[in-house]
């Protein structure tokens, strides 16, 4: 069953057609990768999915409900979480606090209760803290809980961001270049981690440049070029697709 369905979606920025009539779906429990040369519209696609941009036309259906007119926080509340290509942690907060904020989507405490510090909000606060810590344990960063988030190394910050995205118990996770700026060993760790996240029952849609990572973990690969879909298939089939090879290696056979 398709958890996410994108139907004929388009987005234009002035004279640039960033995404053109793209349709695809993501099966529940699968890992799907979006690849394509720079400027292919991958990040625009993610911004459309997470509600930062409104599509000019087309529809995005998540869990059977259209979400393309919803705001980012509403989409997040429905269980569609994402990370950024350039890490965006909350400065002046500890790693643990960052992860705890990600959990707030699931918190029940209302506005007034939060202001008044009612006893059961304290209990819920404890639950959130424990849940955040167990996630950090899962990602192997529990030792960093009390460190200032922005003082951490690049790879550690990525892990914190991932923990924050997972903290809301998403049904689906959008990962924007999770291996960008990582060395080979860290990339391999990330690949294993993404598979483990899928094993938790979380559907993953990933934008990534690292082909070895994409081919290793994905069930399906969507290829974009100049905003258009040119392939959407199993990794092996995509690798053999002449159109994909042409887009990546150029027109002329050298």
């Amino acid at each position, binding site marked *: 069953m398709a958890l996410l369905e994108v139907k004929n979606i388009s987005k234009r920025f002035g004279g640039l057609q960033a995404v053109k009539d793209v349709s695809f779906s993501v099966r529940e429990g699968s890992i799907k990768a979006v690849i394509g040369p720079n400027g292919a519209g991958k990040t625009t696609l993610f911004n459309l999915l997470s509600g930062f941009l409104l599509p000019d036309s087309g529809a995005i259906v998540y869990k059977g409900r259209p979400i393309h007119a919803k705001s980012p926080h509403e989409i997040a509340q429905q269980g569609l979480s994402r990370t950024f290509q350039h890490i965006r942690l909350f400065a002046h907060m500890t790693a643990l606090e960052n992860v*705890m904020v990600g959990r*707030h989507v699931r918190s029940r405490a209302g506005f007034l209760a939060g*202001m008044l510090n009612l006893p059961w909000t304290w209990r*819920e606060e404890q639950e959130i803290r424990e849940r955040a810590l167990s996630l950090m344990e899962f990602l192997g960063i529990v030792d960093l809980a009390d460190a200032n988030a922005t003082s951490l190394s690049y790879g550690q910050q990525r892990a914190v961001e991932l923990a924050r995205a997972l903290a*809301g118990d998403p049904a689906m996770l959008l990962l924007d270049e999770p291996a960008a700026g990582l060395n080979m060993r860290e990339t391999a760790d990330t690949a294993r981690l993404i598979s483990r996240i899928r094993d938790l029952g979380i559907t993953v849609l990933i934008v990534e440049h690292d082909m070895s990572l994409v081919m290793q973990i994905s069930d399906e690969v969507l290829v974009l070029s100049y905003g258009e879909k040119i392939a959407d298939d199993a990794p092996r089939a995509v690798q053999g697709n002449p159109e994909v090879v042409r887009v990546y290696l150029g027109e002329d056979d050298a």
Partner: protein
Amino acid sequence: MFFELFFQYLVAGLTYGTIYAIVGIGFNIIYNTTGIINFAQGEFVMLGGMTAVTLYGFLPLPLAVIGAVLITMVMGGLIEMVFIRWLVKPTVLRMIIITIGISILIREGALLVWGEGVRSLPYFTGNEISALSLGGVRLSPQVLWSIGVCMVIVLFLNLFFKHTMLGREMRACAANRDAAALCGIPTKNMITLSFVLSAGIGALAGCVVSPITYTQYSIGSGLAIKGFTVAILGGLGNSMAAVAAGFILGILESFSIWVLPTAYKDAISIAILLAMLFIRPSGLFGNKEAMRLKDF
């Protein structure tokens, strides 16, 4: 005699310092969540004091103060929803002009409602002539009230921002609005909340100091300049530093009367404001890095 005079000035400085500090904190709360300098901040203090005086006409004092704080909070929220909420990525200059406009609007509205009269609440405990004697220094109990309320506000804010979910969400919103939205935080509501919170704090300050400093429709803009000076002096966005800076400014002003004519009192804060902006815009306690993270 010299020491008595010295302490008398010191106490006066501390009293004014608390209100400057609270206005400065109000600036910081809104600046932290939105990057906006809200020049209508002083009007919240005026609104709080004036509303409390009116309510005191038919309510007991504690209820009048609580009512005034609640009404001003609602006003703060409404102002954000009407004038700020619908703006898409406004520039800093536009925001400054809008908040100055709001401040003029509130002041003129207050003139219509309350007239030009100077008002004040009664002393919370005792009256004008009751005084605690502290080693020969006469101290109005109201001074202790205002310092005490300032301390309670600072303590409450610290607990709120560090240990409640809502407080953490507001900090997250301040640090990175897009990422906060992705965590399911309704960022626009957080901005409204920051206006509600700083309106409430300003109103409470307006009530507590009103017996000492009196209140009138026009006090807001003067307080806004003092509060802004304090916020800059301490370092924008840093509420604890604003308290220290508030006391520094209050005491400097108070002692300036010793050597300068009283009329120059306001010139002191403007001089400090300009000097800080030229020499050390990150504030006494701020670091430059923190400044660069913000919009300007």
